[in-house]
Structure formats: C-alpha cells, structure tokens
C-alpha cells in the first residue's frame, strides 16, 4: 500500500489557524492518525477533521452518497469519539482524490466495516490532544481531565472549549495510543441522527447530478442501438435546423443530439431517424432457450462439492425438486443516468456527476482519451439513488467521448426511456434445486444449478444451509448475451435469496418440519460438526432466527399466514417473518418483522431506513418488475408499464437490531435478499400456491 498521506497532509489545510487531523479512511494500513500544521490553502480539502478556533468542526465525507446514509454515519463515529455535540459538526462531500483515498466508492455495503476503526481512532486521537492541551494550560495531570460535548473539564471545575485549545493542541505530538469510549457511554452512536443533507433536500437545493450547471455547458441526449445491433445510418437533417440545436454526432453506434436546452434537444431528437443492421438479436424466447440449454449441459462449472450428492439422492426416501426463475430488471433510480464532462483543449478533463465509483470513472475516461489519469478531475454530486446502476460508468464514458468530439463542456442526460431501455440490468437467471430427504425428513442431499445470462457465477455456493448438509453439489452456467448486465442491489442474492428461501420452505414442508426449527437444527449441526468450508457465524444466524420467531409470534397468530426466511450477505444477518392475510379473497402481505445483526448500529434512524427501504424494494420487485425483450429492444421503458411499488401497497414493517456491539457491517443491501422468500412463503401459507417466478404478479 502506498502511503503518501503524510506529505499530503502537510500541504493541506482548511483554515488558517485551524486544528486539522489528517486521517485516512481508506488506506488498508491507514489506521494511524497524524496531525497537520495548518496554513491557508484554498484548494483540495481532504483532511477529514478540522476544528477552527470558533469550535466549528468540519468533517469531509469521501464516499459517494446514494441514499444509504454514509455521509451521516461516518461523521457520527468521529464525533462520538471526539466527544462533541453533533450540532457543532458540519459535513461536506469530498471530491475524488486517488492519491490519498482508497475505496472511495459505494458498493457492496462495505464502507462502515472498512472504516470503523479508522473513524474511531481519528476522533479519539483528537480528543486526547485537546485533553493534553488543557492539562498543560492548567498545569494538571491529563488523567484528571474529562471531556464533554466539545469541552475539556478540569479537576477544579476548569472548562475550556476545543476551539480555545486549537492553537496549543495543534503543536502537540500526535499520540500513538488512544482509548475508545465504552459503548455504554455513547451519546451519538446508536441514537437517531438525521441525514446531514435533509435541509438541502427539503428546500430543493441543486445538489444532484442532473442539477449541475457549468459555464458554456451544452445539453445532450443519446440514442442508443438495440442490444447487439450496429448503426448503419442516421438522418438528422431536420434536427439540425431546429432552434437551439448545436450539433448531431455519432460515435460507437450511438447518435448524440446536442443543444442549448433539454426541451430543444428532446424535440429535435424526436425527428432523428436511425437505421440499424438486422440480426438475430435477443428476445425472451432466446433467453428461455438458453436457460433450457444451460440446465441440460454437462459443461456446468462446479462451484462446490461436499460428499456425494448423486449417491445420497439415490438412497433418499423423498426427493423435492423445483425450478425458480427471474427476469432482467432495471435499477430505475429516480434520478436517471446523467453525467457532465469537459474535455478541454489543454488536455485536462473535468468530470462531474453521480457515480458510485469515481475512481473507475477517472481511469476509464483516461484510458478512453489516452491521457494520464492525473489529468482527469472528478467532482461528486449527490445521487438520486443508484442500487448498483452507477457502478458502471458507461454514462461517464459517453459524456467524455461526446465532449471530446464536440469540444464543449456537456451534460448528457438520459430520459427515463433511455435509462430503462439502456441496459446494465440485473441479470436474468433460472435455478434448479433438488433435495433428498431421509425417512425422518432430514435433508441429506442438496443440489443447485444456476443458469444466468451475463451473470457470471449465478450461485453463491457457500450459502447456508451448505455447511450443514452432508452431500452438496452446486453448479453454475453462464450464457453470454448482448444485453448488458451489472450488479443490482445485493447482486445475484437479490433473487437467489428468494429462490433458496422459498425452496427451503418446500423442503421443510416435505420433511414435515417447522421452517424455523429446521434451520436451528441445521445450525446446531454446523456448530458441532460442520461440513466443508463455513463462511458464516452460526451463533449470529441462530440469534436473528430466534428473535424473529419470538418478535413475530411465529405461527401463533390466528388468521395470519406467515412465511419465514433468513439470509447472510455482506457480513450481516437478517431474519424475516412476513404476515399474509386474505383480503377480499386475495392474499396480501400486511406485515414484515425483520431482525438484523449488522453489529453496532451507528445511526438508528438511517439503519431503519435501510432495512425498511430494502424490504419495500425487494417486495416491489418480487411482485411487479419485469423487462421483456424483442429483437434486442427492452420493454417497457417507463413507469406506466414498469411498475414500482407505491405507498398504498406496502406492509407495516418492524425492524429490530441485535444489540451485540460487534464492529459494524453492511446495511444497504442485506435486508433485500431474504424479502422475496419471506413473502413468497407467506403467500404460499395463505394460498397453498408456490411462486416460482418473479414477478409474482404480471
């Protein structure tokens, strides 16, 4: 790991006369903290913690904010250990700085897990230095001093604000050993902290990518070809004559309409006609054929093998078999894709906009334009959702390529139709399960084959109950398509979790077992006598399962049909019980109980938002979402045909967290994978009809 942090910090400052602690939230070896002597520097703010003499505390949050709340959660941890009043903290978004940051990205629910220790250390180190500064001033032993809400308190009632100690503290050596607060003394961690951007959101401040305005900027929309098709020709003669149109250009099978305002571009675009080659492009029938072939092939990749599945199945008293299938779906964040790029004549590039992975954008654009990465600057905007879509920088590349062609700063805006029709979907997949049960109904053999289209390995071969079953075979087949795919909130597991948890419900039923007890029995087996590699902690699984059963009154609610599921992903554990009721002859999910173990909950308000949001997201997509394909073209492409869940379709949700004080793990994704399973199982309990395909309602 490179460590340029120290030299960087020395030349960085926020305010003249401020105390700045430079610490690194990203470097793997960056757990140390060093102090900065400050001089006025107008430029690049990346020291994360600064306290000016007035006592104002400024924290720079480097990770892209897509609604997961990281811009609030990170500073909460620092403020806790620093022991300051949250209202004195101001949080600002840092831009991309690859020299000093690593993991400046949003994905995989990994930010808090990665940075927890670094954040605490930064806060605790600064706090210790203020204590030392005060002790020196009062001529007392530092051990006799305490802190409270941004003040150091002396043994004889002395009191000094951190702000008043800045000058002295900034000259002290940085301590190497610090102690952290006892979690029972937490004032901010675990409490409800409001989002730091709430005020700008509720007053309509221009904080999103689509709101970006830069001097000389033009606006563009891009017509993209059907998947797999080649652009043969286009006719833009009419468009070019229309008011406000600057240019119409073509690159990489795309046609870009460039103009002065959004509406002028939209109007002109409607007059452009494109001709493509004809070919055997993807249709739904193509995908079905690939699934069938993938299920039959003897060339599947073995992902995991424990014992001898075939032999165990042959001696089973009962075999359960089922096929589950999910379609391609769109991410559809409320803010469609967009990006700003200015490829300048001096060889520098400014990129600005919503991306979950700014460093990848920088690299990709530098590579496209064949220039040094250092010449590409990336400004981060707030994102109107991402759900994984903004992990792919196709939108940034388009903007940069277009800017390089038209030699102007340009904001490329995707319409909803462009966004939904333009690819990088959740891959479609089909799963085939087999379970062999012995005479007592115990599963002795478990088989899964996942066939995905552009899904890579469509399975997660180490998923529970693997580890508890003697004979296991997990295989995957990947079919390659021109339809582009990418990670979608909880990649693969967003549907695999549903399929697995629904199948296990069938296994429990066939074996005459209670779905909760069956899992607890398996976990007892994992603890005493595990089979092969174990990637999860059985005790944490057991705890969420027991709590969910208890809090949901599992199978003790008359007239309520319940479905159970539990999932481990992104290092967190979530157990769910969904309640279904028959309303006017139709089964309806009325309530979901969710128990989560994500270790320490940093911000209870944000955590609840993530759990409830993920459940609503998982439920909405399980019920409604589907893209169809015809000759390389996806449909529907807007919300009139592609249904998102609405406020009158949601169940009540109780979200509970296991209070164990373990260091925090991911929360943006883990509650989604178990959702499809809990609701499918509840709907089965109500209707006795298994749901093998997403969406449940077409």
């Amino acid at each position, binding site marked *: 790991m490179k460590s340029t942090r120290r030299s960087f910090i020395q030349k960085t400052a926020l305010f003249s006369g401020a105390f700045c602690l430079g610490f690194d939230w990203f470097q793997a070896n960056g757990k140390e903290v060093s102090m900065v002597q400050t001089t006025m520097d107008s430029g690049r703010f990346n020291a994360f913690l600064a306290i000016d003499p007035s006592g104002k505390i400024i924290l720079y949050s480097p990770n892209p904010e*897509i*609604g*997961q*709340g990281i811009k609030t959660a990170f500073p909460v941890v620092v403020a806790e250990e620093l022991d300051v009043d949250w209202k004195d903290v101001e949080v600002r978004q840092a831009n991309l700085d690859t020299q000093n940051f690593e993991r400046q990205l949003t994905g995989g629910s990994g930010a808090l897990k990665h940075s927890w220790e670094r954040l605490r250390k930064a806060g605790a180190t600064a706090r210790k230095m203020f204590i030392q500064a005060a002790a020196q001033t009062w001529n007392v032993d530092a051990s006799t001093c305490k802190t409270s809400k941004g003040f150091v308190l002396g043994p004889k009632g002395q009191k000094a604000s951190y702000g008043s100690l800045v000058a002295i503290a900034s000259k002290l050596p940085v301590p190497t050993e610090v102690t952290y607060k006892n979690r029972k003394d937490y004032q901010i961690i675990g409490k*409800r902290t409001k*989002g730091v*951007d*709430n*005020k700008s*959101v*509720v*007053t*309509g*401040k*221009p*904080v*999103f990518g*689509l*709101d970006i*305005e830069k001097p000389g900027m033009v*606006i563009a929309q891009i017509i993209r070809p059907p998947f797999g098709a080649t652009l043969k020709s286009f006719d833009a003669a009419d468009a070019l004559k229309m*008011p406000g149109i600057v240019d119409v250009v073509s690159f990489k099978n795309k046609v870009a309409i460039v103009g002065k*305002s*959004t*509406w*002028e571009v939209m*109007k002109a675009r409607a007059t452009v006609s494109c001709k493509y080659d004809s070919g055997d492009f993807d249709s739904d029938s193509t995908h079905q054929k690939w699934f069938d072939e993938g299920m039959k092939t003897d060339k599947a990749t073995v992902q995991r093998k424990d014992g001898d599945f075939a032999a165990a199945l042959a001696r089973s008293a009962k075999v359960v078999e089922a096929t589950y299938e999910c379609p391609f779906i769109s991410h*559809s*964040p*409320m*803010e*469609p894709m967009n990006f700003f790029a200015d490829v300048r004549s001096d060889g520098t590039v400014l990129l600005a906009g919503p991306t979950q992975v700014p460093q990848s954008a920088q690299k990709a654009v530098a590579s496209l334009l064949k220039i040094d990465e250092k010449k590409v600057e990336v400004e981060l905007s*707030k*994102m*109107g*959702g*991402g*759900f994984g879509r903004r992990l792919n920088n196709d939108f940034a590349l388009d903007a940069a390529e277009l800017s390089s062609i038209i030699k102007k700063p340009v904001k490329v805006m995707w*319409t*909803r139709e462009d966004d939904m029709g333009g690819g990088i979907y959740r891959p479609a997949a089909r799963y085939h399960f087999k379970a062999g049960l012995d005479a007592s109904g115990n599963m002795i053999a478990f088989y899964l084959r996942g066939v995905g289209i552009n899904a890579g390995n469509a399975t997660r071969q180490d998923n529970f109950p693997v580890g508890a079953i003697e004979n296991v075979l997990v295989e995957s087949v990947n079919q390659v398509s021109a339809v582009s795919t990418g990670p979608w909130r909880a990649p693969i597991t967003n549907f695999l979790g549903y399929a697995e948890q629904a199948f296990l419900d069938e296994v429990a039923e066939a074996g005459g077992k209670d779905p909760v007890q069956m899992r607890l029995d398996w976990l007892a087996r994992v603890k005493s006598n595990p089979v092969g590699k174990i990637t999860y902690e059985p005790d944490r699984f057991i705890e969420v399962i027991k709590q969910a059963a208890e809090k949901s009154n599992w199978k003790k609610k008359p007239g309520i049909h319940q479905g159970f599921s539990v999932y481990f992903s992104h290092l967190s554990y979530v157990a769910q019980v969904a309640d279904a009721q028959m309303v006017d002859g139709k089964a309806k999910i009325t309530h979901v109980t969710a128990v989560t173990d994500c270790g320490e909950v940093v911000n209870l308000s*944000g955590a609840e*938002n*993530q759990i*409830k*949001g*993920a*459940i*609503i*997201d998982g439920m909405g997509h399980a019920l409604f979402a589907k893209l169809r394909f015809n000759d390389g073209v996806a449909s529907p492409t*807007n*919300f*009139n045909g592609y249904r*998102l869940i*609405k*406020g*009158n*379709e*949601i169940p*009540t*949700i109780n979200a509970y967290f296991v209070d164990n004080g373990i260091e925090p793990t991911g929360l943006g994704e883990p509650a989604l994978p178990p959702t499809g399973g809990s609701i499918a199982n509840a709907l089965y309990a109500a209707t006795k009809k298994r749901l093998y395909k997403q969406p449940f309602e077409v």
Partner: protein
Amino acid sequence: MSIQLTVNKKKMSLDIDPNTPLLWALRDNMSLKGTKYGCGIAQCGACTVWVNGEATRSCVLPISAVANADITTIEGLSDHGDHPVQVAWDELDVPQCGYCQAGQIMTAASLLKKKPNPSKTEIVDGMSGNICRCGTYHRIQEAVKLASEIASKKKTKSTVKKSA
C-alpha cells in the same frame, strides 16, 4: 411571443417555445432545479409543483397552459425552509436519496391545505401517486401526520397571540 407567469411570487416573462413543459422551463430557463425530472409522463410525481395552488405534474404541462398562472415550486414553499411539511420531513428523517422528495413535499403540502387533519387512509391515498424508489413511504406517511400536527399547533399559537 413571451409568456408571463408568477413563480414563487416573482413575475417572470419567458420567450420560449410555448410547448416547453413547465418542468424544463423551471429547470433550464429559470434555474430552479428543485423540481425534478423522473419519468416525463406524469407517472412518478417527482416534478410536482403548484399551479394556482393545485398540485400539478409539471413534466407534461406546456408553458403556454400556465400563462398568467401562479406557480409555487419547492424553492418557494416557504421563505426559510420551515413549512410544517419541510420541518416534519427533517424531523422524521424521511429522505434517503432525496430525489423524489421535492415532489412528495409539494404533494403533501397541497394535501394538507385541503385536509388539515387527514385520516391515515386520506394520507396513504393522497400520497400514493408519488413514487419513492428508496421506499421511504412509511416515513412519508408519518411525516404528513406530523406536519398536520405542527401546522395545527402553529395555528393555535397564532390565534392565542392575536387574542392576547
């Protein structure tokens, strides 16, 4: 031909294509970026503004149709960001990504103008035309209730003040 209208209490005169949707006139011609584009076909509600006090989808409304009208956008809902709905939205920490919230807030504030004390069903029905992809619906519904309580307290206070 220029079109006259009042936006957030300011008189404006625009010389643009009369078919321009109000949404794009606000965002591109008046630099009011708080009103959001989500679908362009009046399905999601992100573009909700008030036209003569009525919550309206601005993405399909040509500017010519609002000549001489009185428009209120999220930027003009209150002078200091302290409309009861805005206060409640912050208080209950409603936003996740925040993108749809301007439209949600304009819809909620309009609902409360008509029904200062809405029932749970009235809140759910009144807010269900606005999509939130992050799934903040529970808190949206709770915040509308809270906003109605804040507003009624404010009202009581000002009545007391006047009579005193």
